[in-house]
């Protein structure tokens, strides 16, 4: 190709090159725009509620759209209860899986099986968990509640927590596996050489080393639990009143921030109502984002060391 023709081609290519680079930049900037947009929309739409209810919204105990009274407290309780119960129950399982696959048996068909199981648990859509929970778990819990002399709702905070437990285990587990595998061999070998047993090495070398990372895994699981909507909506009973006895709080019906939004959003017929629901969404957004970011920050710091 003669030089002139080639030069013309190169000149045209330069223009395309610059355009391409600009598109890449634009698409990356779009992401920032989306997040800013999400935050802005949430704030703008919850403004009426923020203005009229103020900060007392967060500890308002009554949620009664008919009388135009809105308080977030029942949902904060519901969200925190379901998430923390799920978290506490899930921790032994997540840790066990992480330790088994990270230290005891990182390779082989058995560990592949377990790994695939964990990934499958994460892959199942939450609506299916909810559906199954409604038809299988709820009757079981009802029987259980009869046995322990509690009102046999079947649905409720406890049942939701159980299903949530299953759903969040993969998050802490897979992070834990990665972290435990990152423990440097010399550290472990040194301990073994000194005569430590597996158990001692895990407890005194691996656990302390990965402690902050595992905590981050817990945070990520928490973030997942807080934002979970469908399975919880189907199993929690959708009651916006706070139960009077402790037993009923745990075993009775309730609501989370996500589930009340899911249930009442399309029914919200006036601004106050809708705006209060959006405010819940804003709170949910802020809390989950903060928890997730802290978790991710800990992990980056850990992996960079």
């Amino acid at each position, binding site marked *: 190709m003669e030089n002139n023709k080639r*030069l013309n*081609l*190169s000149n045209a290519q*330069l223009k395309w090159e610059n355009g391409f680079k600009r598109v890449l930049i634009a698409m990356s900037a779009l992401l920032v725009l989306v997040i800013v947009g999400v935050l802005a929309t949430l704030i703008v739409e919850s403004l009426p509620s923020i203005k009229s209810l103020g900060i007392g919204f967060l500890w308002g105990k009554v949620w009664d759209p008919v009388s135009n009274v809105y308080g977030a407290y029942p949902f904060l309780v519901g969200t925190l209860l379901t998430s923390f119960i799920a978290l506490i129950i899930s921790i032994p399982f997540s840790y066990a899986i992480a330790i088994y696959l990270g230290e005891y048996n990182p390779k082989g068909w058995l560990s592949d099986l377990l790994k695939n199981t964990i990934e499958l648990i994460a892959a199942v859509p939450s609506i299916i968990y909810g559906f199954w929970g409604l038809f299988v778990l709820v009757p079981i819990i009802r029987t259980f509640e009869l046995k322990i002399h509690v009102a046999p709702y079947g649905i409720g905070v406890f049942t939701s927590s159980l299903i949530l437990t299953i759903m969040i285990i993969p998050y802490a587990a897979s992070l834990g596996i990665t972290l435990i595998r990152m423990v440097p061999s010399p550290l472990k070998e040194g301990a073994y050489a000194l005569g430590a047993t597996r158990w001692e090495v895990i407890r005194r070398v691996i656990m302390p080393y990965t402690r902050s990372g595992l905590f981050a895994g817990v945070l990520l699981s928490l973030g997942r639990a807080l934002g979970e909507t469908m399975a919880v909506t189907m199993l929690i009973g959708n009651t916006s009143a706070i139960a009077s006895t402790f037993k009923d709080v745990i075993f009775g019906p309730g609501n989370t921030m996500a589930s009340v939004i899911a249930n009442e959003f399309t029914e919200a017929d006036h601004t106050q109502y809708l705006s209060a629901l959006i405010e819940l969404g804003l709170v949910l957004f802020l809390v989950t984002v903060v928890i997730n970011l802290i978790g991710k920050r800990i992990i980056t710091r850990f992996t960079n060391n």
Partner: protein
Amino acid sequence: MESTIVKAENYNSYFGDNHVVKDVNISINRNEVIAVMGPSGCGKTTFLRGINRMHELIQGATSKGKILLDGQNVYDMNPIYVRYKIGMVFQRPNPFPNLSIYENVVAGYMLNGLKLSKADKDVIVERSLTSAALWKEVKDSLHKKGTFLSGGQQQRLCIARAIAMQPDLILFDEPTSALDPISTSSVEQLFHELKKNYTLIIVTHNMQQAARVSDRTAFFYLGELVEFDDTKVMFTNPKDQRTQNYITGRFS
């Protein structure tokens, strides 16, 4: 045609604030083989990559001064065009892994969307691979991917790929430092053949290689072009004390 093909005038290179190549002035003639040598970190590779404007692709990398290719400052030209006019061979052989040997040779055309007839492509492939002394070894496996080739063969494939574009100037960035001695010598033999049609600038950290293959040698030290002379003179009677120290092994 003028005999000077590349001329650097007060050329400087920077990585951010780091002044890596300092005020280089050098004039290179057609069909010469120029070796550029010096200890690690002396700026020789940075200088080389400034000639075909690869240097500026690194974030924060800048340069000042002129590099004239056939009288025209490459920094006033379209960088894509400059890189097309100048061929480059890298330290580690880097044939495209998803392309066959045949496709690798004509990659400079195909990746630019330039359609060539099969006949044209065949001609280019055979000519380039022959010039790179690789034709006989691969002519029956042109459509296989190049992964089965040895290091030396892969490097010659990269040379063929560069030659296929018919550049006047080919830059080599330590082309044999990742190769075994036999491959190294096959590539060095190639330089003698290539100089008939091309001008070669070869950065090397191997003094003996510089002495073996080049007509003139440039010695870089701490970013400066310390000395540039006929190779024979450089190695027997260098004018600068630093050059003397380098070739006698005081530092490397």
